[in-house]
């Protein structure tokens, strides 16, 4: 595995995702410090371009956290978010890049373990697969 620490960026929706992250922090949960988050009003705001540009800017793993699909504050926001992530995932897979590097998560604002679980999982994926430059596991 590489020496450089993994870089992970997460796009969290302002409503349930941020609330669940705040609740997680307050209830003592901890997660990997190599995860950085950007807050967007809704996971539906995120498009493929934004996700791929995060990879361009050096991310080894990217994730999006949105509301539960049946209980989204903007009604269909997280459904859109998941579609964008799935699209980028299939593009990366087709290009031979591990599709685990990008993931969509859904969290309810009353759920303290969803965000830490997502963050840790993506940090672990980024550490296991190594930076993009290293060609990932295949090397």
């Amino acid at each position, binding site marked *: 595995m590489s020496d450089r620490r993994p870089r992970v960026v997460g796009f969290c929706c302002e409503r349930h995702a941020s609330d669940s992250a705040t609740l997680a922090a307050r209830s003592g949960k901890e997660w990997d410090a190599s995860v950085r988050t950007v807050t967007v009003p*809704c996971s539906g705001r995120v498009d493929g371009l934004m996700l791929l540009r995060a990879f361009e*800017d050096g991310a080894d793993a990217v994730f999006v956290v949105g509301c539960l699909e049946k209980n989204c504050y903007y009604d*269909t926001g997280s459904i*859109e978010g998941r579609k964008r992530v799935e699209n980028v995932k299939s593009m990366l897979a087709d290009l031979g890049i591990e599709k685990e590097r990008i993931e969509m998560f859904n969290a309810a604002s009353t759920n303290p373990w969803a965000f830490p679980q997502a963050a840790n999982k993506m940090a672990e994926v980024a550490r296991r697969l190594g930076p993009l430059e290293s060609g990932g596991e295949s090397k």
Partner: protein
Amino acid sequence: MTGTIQVVICRCCVEKPALIDLARLEAVAAETELVSSVVISEAVCDGKGATDVAKDAQAKDGDRAVVVACDKKDFDPALLRAYRRAGIDELMVEFLNMREGVVLPHARDNERAQAKAETMLRAALKRAMMLKPLEMETEEMRTRNVVIVGAGVAGRAAAETAARAGMHTILIEKGDRSFKAPGVLMTRAKVVGGKGYPGNYVLTIKAGEKVEELECAAVVVATGGGWTTLKGPLAKACKEAIPLYRLHEQVTAGAVPKGPIVIADTPDPSGKSLRVMDFAWEEALETAISLKRTHPQTDVTMVFQEMRAFGLSELAYKEAADMGIRFVRYDKSGAPKIDSKDPTKLTVKDLAQGELLTLSFGTLAFASLPANPDNKDIADALRIPMTPEGAMRRGSIQRWPVSTPRPGIYVCGSALFPKTAEVAKAEGEAAGAMAARFAISGTISFGGVVAEVTQEKCSACLTCVRTCPFEAPFIGKASKVEIRKQLCQGCGMCAGACPSKAIDLLHFTDDQVREQSRVLLGGDF
């Protein structure tokens, strides 16, 4: 030319567990261009000294600020009010949640926590630099009408409260019971359609055969319970089973329900067609206790998958047990079944003892009920999202108990789920007051964080028109898409979907979000 940035760092949030070196943060902030002043505040959230912090920013002609503290939602508005007086609009203040973002989750990893804190600060500063003042627009409300749908307990309470606050109220009642209503009362009327936006809604009302348009500023949905229909195998098997709601009415009316009473949590234990409602336990406990109080000798058994009595109803659970109410817990493997031969017998495998129990009953009541079917038409007409069970969806229970995601539309009473009269009346008053507060200003302000279309780039592909759940984008005059700002909730789904990159969401534009993530990824990890 963008003004300078003031950075306010809250010592309490950032430095308390001595995890993050405040001085280095200060240095990072100070060395960033455009930062005119860095203020360390003992505790930003108590708002003390907010005015001179704002004056300090104004003195250095700052027009934006970065507040490094905790979660924006539990923030004392004093500082924001001070900033507004100093000419810094709330949208120009960037909040960096250092406490829940770094301090708490990375308490045992201080070396990397410092790196993360500095990078997040740089990203917040970068975003602050890119913020643009967003002007809000206002529009006169054509009317001050508050329409209340449903003249039940909640509806009437809402009407009285709104009327007391000086609003012209219009009560729409499906039935034809007439009574002294504060404003106008339309009986045998139903809402069948709705256009417009908060403050200037146009409802289509079908009164008898006549269909008419009704302009109003706010709407209170109090369509009431009507929780009478039962769905699920157990309800089918036992015809005389009654909803808890009816049992509650009988008990409060002092009637004596027949024979041993069994209250089950749901007529559909497998949960295929009906989820166990979260109100089921509280309501069932209250009804059982009041029943046992007036008729101590009748035998009451409660059959539940799990007894989630939280908060005050914890006491109710204890009181019920003391009064001799029996509790039978089951799981899906031994779900209750009505004896096919004798419909007054219910068999269920008691998880505690593990053996099959046969309960004979005079009255069988179910606590979970499907939502009021009328909800669907009202939700469609007013385009309010609904919960999977078919009830109206409201904002979060703690902060917005009677509001819906759409401003100007409020919901109260049993339209959400069955409630006792007192609770319904209280919610009605709350909804009436909220509607009055919304309508009383007479003007609606909108804009700020809304989507914006660059007409030349729009290729009129209609993706946004089809994607937006609030129908804010519409086909404008030049066959290009325009955003009806009054309807836009600022979620940005259209910006995310637009194939020609013609739509951007103000305050969260592509560049702003990209720069923030680029700076975040640029810092050391």
